[in-house]
């Protein structure tokens, strides 16, 4: 080596040495413990960046106010009748919009290199993905609760009562678990968080509008009505409506859950494969 001048051991260096040498290695955490730790990470983010949650809840609340008071009378005869019709659908919209952020935050982790740190750890491989889903589910519940609470404040009184509303929320959140893997794949493939957001909303926005969330499909031209009827978002909105009304539509609920399961079955393995090999 060349003759370099070294600073004498400062107090810093001594502390660093102590910190380095004093580490007996703890036993490896179990898969569940690792996943829960990632869930905790997701919740910390909600705590530190609540704006992100605001983004996704403000839009549906805005739609709620706009559609109810602007178009409600024209579409359904009265604002209160329209509120009863559209709120269960807006719940779907609000929570599904939030799922796009699962892909956005995954992509953020990828572009910032955080994922590489996780992948270099001796932990159960799917733990980061499943853990962040746990964290995301908190967001889904918050987004859904906000829209229901605002609805109730505006006079929404579902026949299914509290239990019906909670059941509808649970169904929508369960559907979101499936859908979020689609956006996770998008998050793995795209170059930037913004690109994921744009692509995600480009898909989810028209799909939400071309559904029965806002209007009764019977009023639509034939081909469009045909599309709206098979749109899974329509089916989910129908299921949500039936639960809130206290008259569960078994068919719609079953199809919603089946679609969610199918989405997860295809896109979850795809996500983990991309996550591993990237």
């Amino acid at each position: 080596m060349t003759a370099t001048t070294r600073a004498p051991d400062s107090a810093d260096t001594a502390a660093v040495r102590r910190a380095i040498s004093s580490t007996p290695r703890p036993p490896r955490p179990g898969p569940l413990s690792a996943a829960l730790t990632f869930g905790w990470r997701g919740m910390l983010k909600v705590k530190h960046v609540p704006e992100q949650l605001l983004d996704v809840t403000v839009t549906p609340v805005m739609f709620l106010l706009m559609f109810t008071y602007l178009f409600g009378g024209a579409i359904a005869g009265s604002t209160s009748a329209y509120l009863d019709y559209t709120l269960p659908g807006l719940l779907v919209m609000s929570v599904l919009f939030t799922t796009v952020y699962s892909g956005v935050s995954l992509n953020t982790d990828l572009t910032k290199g955080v994922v590489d740190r996780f992948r270099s750890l001796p932990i159960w491989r799917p733990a980061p993905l499943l853990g962040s889903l746990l964290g995301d589910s908190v967001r889904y519940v918050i987004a859904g609760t906000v829209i229901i609470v605002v609805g109730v404040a505006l006079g929404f009184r579902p026949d299914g009562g509290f239990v019906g509303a909670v059941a509808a929320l649970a169904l929508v959140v369960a559907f979101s678990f499936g859908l979020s893997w689609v956006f996770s794949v998008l998050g793995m493939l795209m170059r930037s968080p913004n690109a994921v957001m744009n692509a995600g909303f480009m898909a989810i926005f028209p799909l939400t509008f071309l559904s029965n969330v806002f209007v009764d499909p019977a009023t639509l031209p034939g081909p469009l009505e045909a599309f709206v009827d098979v749109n899974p978002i329509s089916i989910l909105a129908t299921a949500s409506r039936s639960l809130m009304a206290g008259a569960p539509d078994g068919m719609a609920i079953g199809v919603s859950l089946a679609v969610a399961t199918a989405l997860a079955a295809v896109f979850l393995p795809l996500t983990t494969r991309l996550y591993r090999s990237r």
Partner: protein
Amino acid sequence: MTTHIPLAIDASGLGKSFGETRAVAGVDLAVPEGAIYGVLGPNGAGKTTTIRMLATLIPPDAGSARVMGHDIVSEADTVRELVSLTGQLASVDEELTGRENLVLLGRLLGYSRAGARDRADELLDAFDIADAAGRLVKHYSGGMRRRLDIAASIVVTPRLMFLDEPTTGLDPRSRNQVWEIARALVAEGTTILLCTQYLEEADQLADGIAVIDRGRVIAEGTPRDLKASIGTGALHVRLLDPGRRAEAAQMLERTVGPVVLEQDPAALSATGADADRAAFAVAELSRAGVPLAHFSLQQPSLDEVFLALTGHAAQATSAPSDTLQENLS
């Protein structure tokens, strides 16, 4: 392959392609345990891809490697227990606080809640980030962030640490701090693979260096070996009387080699000088009565080594050998 010195990294023919691009084209590395080993090369030379393979982040498509005796493919999980990554290779979470980052990693490495918190506090104190422990990392200064990065990599002290461009963009004080930490780690028994484009950094820290260019190791050895391998240095002379420079130049040309007249009217240097010839030349000058203000024998800098080996300059280097000369003189 059996060796007597245990190897932290033993790679042979390691290769990786991305589509048509052969990012790594057969890298052989033998890194002894307990040392700092530098991997030197410009951007795009294949350094990062090599390290990502060694750290089990991506599988190689050719060759094989063992880290601390464990195969990086078939025993990837064991390798992950022994290594950690820093710098551009693996970052900390900017949207969490410094403490949360360390607690998170502590939990993931198996610490209990309380254990992870204690370990985080110990590291925050040692790395001088305790004051900023509750702030989000995105508001950290570059030096603080880099220290947190390293702290995050030693929540459990690794046997092998990949230190990637650890001082890029740091001010000299922070840079020295990072170097001190690296030396402390090695003193405690960790092996470090240092990836850098800064030749000075490799020269300062590394016991051995591999120079990578276009996906291959093109030279290997100690910094001193590498410098010696491209030949001799330069004798630099400064006269008291500028009027006698022509005379001095003639003598140096005869005793040493080609002479370069410098901008300073009293200074000149002769290339191709080894210690003996330089001593002889200086003695000749003084015998001839040419008074000297100063003389020095400079080894070639690693920049020159790089240029000689690759035919092109390393990127992101300052004026060639300025800083190195200061350290040598």
